[in-house]
């Protein structure tokens, strides 16, 4: 018996092959993204090592800004890994939404509900 699902799979996989000219272009993108990810990591580590969270036991007033910029930089790094290295950016629009929409909805809910609860418990434990 001929498995036509496997044949179909093979067609999709074969159509993903590309020639050398396209390869050169792709490799250029890969190295660019590598440079960017490395740069972001270096900036993060240097900021983390030199900007203190506390100065002589009192919280550093600019720390919230640093903290949020770390989170934003992390999200930028994550976006580049998912869209460029995992090639999600090259998949069909429907597939992108099928994967990302439920994830973002659930994570936004989880972050909101857990942090709200934690802050409430904190206000009881340390009035």
């Amino acid at each position, binding site marked *: 018996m001929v498995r036509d699902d496997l044949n179909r799979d093979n067609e999709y*996989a074969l159509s993903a092959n590309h020639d050398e000219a396209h390869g050169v272009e792709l490799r250029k993108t890969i190295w660019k993204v590598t440079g960017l990810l*490395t740069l972001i990591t270096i900036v993060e580590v240097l900021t983390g090592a030199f900007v203190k969270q506390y100065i002589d036991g009192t919280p550093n007033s600019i720390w919230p800004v640093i903290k949020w910029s770390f989170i934003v930089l992390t999200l930028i790094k994550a976006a580049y890994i998912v869209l460029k290295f995992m090639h999600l950016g090259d998949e069909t629009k429907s597939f992108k939404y099928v994967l990302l929409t439920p994830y973002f909805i659930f994570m936004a809910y989880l*972050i909101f509900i857990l942090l709200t609860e934690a802050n409430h418990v904190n206000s009881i434990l340390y009035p």
Partner: protein
Amino acid sequence: MAGHAKELDAATAWGGDGSPFRLTYGKQMMWFFLLSDALTFGGLLCSYGYFRHQYDSWPVGEEVFNAMPFLGNGFPLLYVALMTFILIVSSVTMVLAVEAGHRVDKKGVIKWLTLTVIGGVFFVGSQAWEWYHFIHGSHYGAIHTPEVWNNGWATIKEGAELGISQDFVLDFGHGKVLGATSEEQALVAQYIAEPLAHIQGANMTENEYAPMIPQFANLFFFITGFHGFHVLSGVVINLIILINVVKGVYDKRGHFEMIEKVGLYWHFVDLVWVFVFTFFYLV
């Protein structure tokens, strides 16, 4: 990518023939597996956030993770930065292996996949070392003192480490130090001689970094351990696929899509580390 989303003619598409996302079955299922795994890691990191927001104080990453193999303490974030860099580089070699696979360049695939496996092994080894530092703790550990800062818990350090001429000082964390003056030094000597309690390193019930927060060590062990287990599995899977490539299994198929599938898993491991790195070490 060229031909990545292959167009179907209307008759084929309406006939229900072909994938709804113009993807192979294997790749789709790998993506859905990664989605569920991402939810698991998301849940774990959110529970970390929960405990962090519940407690009033939390250890500072650069004060806890400042050890370097062979060199001892005093290198904030340097070792973990190196680990992060190793994992990013192995992610790059993996994407290059996938690209070589699309050109049906077997030699290229073998070269880049081998480098990826080596990078993965280095990362797992580094993580073992990181755990070793964390479990064994600082040189002298932490003691409980009658002083009130940080619930009275302080780490014993050599003065030289903090640029103070005295032999030993008590570091209460967050920049609070006792022992700079000779009167303080007498107190420090007294506290060291008769500590209320002494903790060195970390285990599941207590840790010197946050003596009042056992969850700090628990979450570190669970989340980095779970991630490390993923890296280890990734290395094994990459190795199996590498052996298949060398044996010529994918030459017969005419495409190296299997590299793409394991590549997705490997990039996901890197992706998780980006978040673990930020929330455990940076913020």
